């Protein structure tokens, strides 16, 4: 095999090192979640499932998991619906004020989450609302929306607007066109948007921490457990399950997104 020229070889080594360091902390938790020791330290002493087994009977954790599921599904669904509106307007209409309008929708992507969290907290409490899963959903919807819009904009760009026009010309109503042309064409992007936003909601901590009241989501539950050193191995086990779930969801989302992209390549 011909060796690559030196600078490029150095670059390749750097890339490998970078990826290893990037993944090291992510993969470290699962390693120690199987380690038969009450504190995570080297050398590893033995393999065990007991940290996972003790999760099985933990009602508080299961309650938090249920809360996370409710919040994640609601936020993912609502954010995708609103995302379809925004992405449609951005890709299919030309109007004054589009840039500031879409910038506002995308803004939570770049704002510090603590700013969003405290301002929502003050307003929701000021309106006399009780903190609950609903308030967490409202917050998550705000930060999920930019990601939905992003995924769905590429979905809309992926199919020819003339298909919708043709459908209308052939006598289909606007709703019929939406149901029978637009949504089917968008399906891969919609699935991708649902999965990505669900993952973001599942992992989100700051907004849930401020807005969840007495019903914790999984990250908030984990945060509470961190006060107890003895619970750390259980937290590592739960964290590993969460990381694995996120990885699977994101991979599936990526597969769907690629399918949407392939549709784009089939464009005439």
């Amino acid at each position, binding site marked *: 095999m011909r060796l690559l020229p030196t600078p490029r070889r150095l*670059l390749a080594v*750097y*890339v490998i090192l*970078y990826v290893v360091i*990037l*993944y090291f*902390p*992510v993969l*470290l*938790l699962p390693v*120690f979640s199987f380690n038969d020791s009450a*504190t*995570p*330290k*080297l*050398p590893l002493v033995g393999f065990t499932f007991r940290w996972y087994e003790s999760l099985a009977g933990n009602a508080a954790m299961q309650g938090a998991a249920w809360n996370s599921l409710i919040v994640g599904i609601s936020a993912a669904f609502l954010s995708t*619906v609103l*995302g379809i*509106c*925004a992405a*449609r307007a951005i890709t299919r209409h*030309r*109007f*004054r*004020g589009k840039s500031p*309008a879409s*910038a506002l*929708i*995308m803004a939570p*992507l*770049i*704002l*510090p*989450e*603590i*700013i969003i969290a*405290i*301002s929502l907290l*003050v*307003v929701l409490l000021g309106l006399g609302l009780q903190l609950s899963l609903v308030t967490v959903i409202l*917050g998550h*919807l*705000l930060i999920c929306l930019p990601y939905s819009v992003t*995924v769905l904009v*590429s979905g809309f760009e992926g199919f020819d607007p*003339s298909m*919708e*026009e043709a459908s*209308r*010309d052939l*006598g289909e109503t606007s709703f019929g066109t939406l149901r029978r042309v637009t949504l089917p064409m968008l399906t891969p992007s919609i699935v991708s948007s649902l999965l990505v936003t669900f993952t973001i909601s599942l*992992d989100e901590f700051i907004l849930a921490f401020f807005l969840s009241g007495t019903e914790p989501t999984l*990250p908030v539950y*984990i945060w509470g457990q*961190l006060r107890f050193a003895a619970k750390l191995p259980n*937290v590592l086990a739960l964290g590993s399950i*969460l990381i694995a779930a*996120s*990885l699977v969801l*994101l991979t599936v989302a990526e597969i769907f997104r690629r399918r949407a992209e392939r549709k784009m390549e089939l464009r005439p």
Partner: protein
Amino acid sequence: MACIQLPFDLLLKCPDAVVPITTATPDYRIMPSGTTVQSEELNLHQPASTSPAQRTVRDPISRFVRSETGKGWLTISPPLLYAMLLLIGPIIVIVANSFWSQDYLTIDRTFTLENYKAALTEPIYRDLLMRSLFISVTVAFVTVVLAYPIAWFVSFYGGRYKGLWLFIITVPFWSGYLLRILSWKVILGYKGVLNTGLMHLGVITEPLSSLIYNVNAVIITLAHSWAAFAILPLFVSLEKLDRSLLEVAADLGDGPVRRFLRITLPLTMPGIIAALMIVMIPTVGDYVTPKLVGGKDGVMIANAIQVQFGRASNWPLGAALAVSTMIIVSLVAGTIVLALTGLKRLLK
């Protein structure tokens, strides 16, 4: 193109704004001849009573709704109203709060600058603000410098697998924010993985106490957390770089360093600026990292803000701290943007 690239694509189009988010109209698109087609179609299906003459005298509201602008606004209105109500509204309320004062549990709504005076002059808040700024600017630059070669590699040598590379690199960013920081606590802790590992190998005889609970630990953890996010805007700007420029420069005798400084660096400056901003602005308000690995010396402004909205329960002061942070970070961001834009002109 990967889906996650797009917001950066949008960001790059307006590199000079302080918070550079914008969307441009996709000018390559031939707009659907929606208006005419639709009115003809309506004509076919509507009862005969609506003659064209009647349609033209329709009231201005429905004329607006039929126009391209009206349809655009109507379509974007649900998400836009949501963002107005739950982002702009609350931020206005926070700004208002910052000019009020609180006496035990009642809010006094007379205008006062006392909170800003406290936020900007009391040594504890001033120190926290300066430290948070220092941390976020350092993290942004470290992240971008380390990420640039990766973006370069993916863009120049990624070939067919560019999408896969971007996916591999960004996945850690999308999963487990809290858990990644916890993992760094496990690595850097006094009895953590690094210390016990080094002791096991015999490199050190007793644990190093300097690994965790200081500013460095916060910077390392944040730089790791945000690494992937910086790569995307850099990648987008490298993709846009016209490769033939580099070839021409090489043919005319420019070496690799000169080519980089005079072509690649200036032309990818928008990407660099976007990457810096997208790391710097959110990290200034990070709460979890200082809490888990920062210790006493690594406390940041977000921790002080949280205390005001929690235990201390002085909302107006917390609001003033939050608003000051945002204004100061925007000023710093603006300065960096101007400096880098100036540098770009110098290099060209």
